[in-house]
């Protein structure tokens, strides 16, 4: 069981990497777009008279943005691309569930997105001289795990949600930037108007990011940090449950109506 499970995971991720992740478009999302936003942030900071930009938000925030953009443009299109390429029928007809296949694919999408984060951290360290003294390294690692889990749950949710309509591609423009805006990828959430801060509370990435920032700015574990992790975990699980419910609906719709190509 476990050997076949890992073999399936390995094969799925291998194919996903080769066919849908390793292309110039995704590379631009991982590296170029975040770099452009980071440069805008730096020049704005310079224009405001600051001697140096805030590296945690302006540079490392760009890495988070790359992870999110990469996920949006790979996960939301996964089922749609299967339908277009004619592989959706083969997956649904095979004994392995679509849910499991999607789970591995989304995991690969997120792991690939980590390269954006690594690039941003490297840029912060090598170009801008960011040093890790006085940071909570364990807290950073745990926060990153919560962020990855949050992204995975949201990726699964989006893949199933957008499988319902052929117009799903148009929603992507309403997902990429608003999430960056609401979750404070490149500035603290306190910058937002209070009502927008309330809206952003429903996204687990916001809480994971708050934990990450707190760990980067302070070397101690505080109850406040634990509360961010708990919120990130709880809301991620809620998204996972929603994704499972949607996944069931997609499967039922396909099997009962035989309308695989019409979803």
């Amino acid at each position, binding site marked *: 069981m476990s050997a076949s499970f890992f073999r399936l995971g390995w094969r799925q991720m291998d194919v996903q990497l080769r066919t849908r992740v390793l292309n110039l*478009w995704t590379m631009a999302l991982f590296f170029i777009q975040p770099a452009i936003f980071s*440069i805008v*942030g730096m020049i704005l900071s310079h224009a405001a008279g600051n001697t140096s930009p805030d590296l945690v938000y302006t540079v490392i925030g760009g890495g988070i943005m790359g992870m999110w953009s990469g996920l949006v443009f790979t996960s939301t299109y996964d089922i749609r691309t299967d339908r277009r390429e004619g592989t959706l029928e083969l997956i649904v007809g095979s004994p392995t569930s679509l849910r499991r296949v999607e789970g591995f694919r989304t995991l690969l999408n997120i792991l690939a997105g980590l390269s954006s984060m690594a690039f941003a951290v490297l840029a912060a360290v090598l170009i801008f001289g960011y040093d890790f003294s006085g940071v909570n390294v364990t807290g950073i690692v745990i926060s990153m795990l919560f962020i990855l889990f949050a992204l995975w749950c949201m990726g699964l949710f989006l893949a199933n949600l957008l499988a319902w309509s052929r117009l799903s591609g148009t929603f992507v423009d309403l997902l990429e*930037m608003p999430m960056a805006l609401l979750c404070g990828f490149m500035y603290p959430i306190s910058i937002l108007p209070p009502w927008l801060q309330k809206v952003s509370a429903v996204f687990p990435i916001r809480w994971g990011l708050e934990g990450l920032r707190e760990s980067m700015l302070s070397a101690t574990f505080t109850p406040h940090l634990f509360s961010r992790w708990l919120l990130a975990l709880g809301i991620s699980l809620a998204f996972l449950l929603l994704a499972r419910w949607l996944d069931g609906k997609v499967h039922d719709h396909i099997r009962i109506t035989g309308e695989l190509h019409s979803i």
Partner: protein
Amino acid sequence: MMQKAAHIFRLYFYQAWYSYRSLFAWSTPFSYFTSKFGFPFFSMLMFVFMAKFAGLNDPAYIIIGNILLMPATNGIYGISMTVGNERQFGAMSYLLGSPAPRAPLFLGRAFFHILDGLVSVIIALPIALLIFKVNISQVHVFLLLCCLVILTITTTGLGFIMGSISLLSRDGWMFTNVIGQLLFILIGVNFAVSQLPRFLQPVSNFLPMTRVILATRQVLEGVGWSQISELLVGEILVGLVYILFGYTLFRIIERASMSTGSLDSI
């Protein structure tokens, strides 16, 4: 002579209308609005909050700059798509096989994008000016309109070039996106060109939109024709160079594809 002119005229508008309707990849008003305003609107808000975090408390500069960049959605992304999708949808071979003159075929793709971009900015700019209570009593409206027309036309040059490049590479859309996003930095949208590092400032001078965005900002401050005429003339020249370069590139690619039969294999 008259008949030939009428033929070219008709061909230009047929191409303009059909390419706008079928190749800009929107099928419902909702998808039109999301694809056209989704990314520009939310990225503008993102820059506003980034500026607020940096310590700049007046968002008007960024909002006006991003609104003036809106025609780029049509001029760059739209035109690039209408040229590039022609090949992707399998229609390019038929188009190149037809005896129709190339100039109206190629340049016709811009007409409705220019109109669409102009209407967008004409609607969005007054709304932003009202929201941010910008004093417009001194603004020369005709001059402002002139700037906006020039802005929407000169943007198309980059679209023609990127459209031609998308005939050469299957990753053309990626290059278009990168160029489009570099405009956030290079042409004075979110901050003045003078804020750029010294080595980047000359690059801005060679790009379309830099001068006309600066001129429009000055017109909004109440400046008259004499102070911006040089900027507008420069913008028109740069725009013409880009449009001609895009057209020439298209003709070169067309000829190369005829001799090698390679257009559909790239």
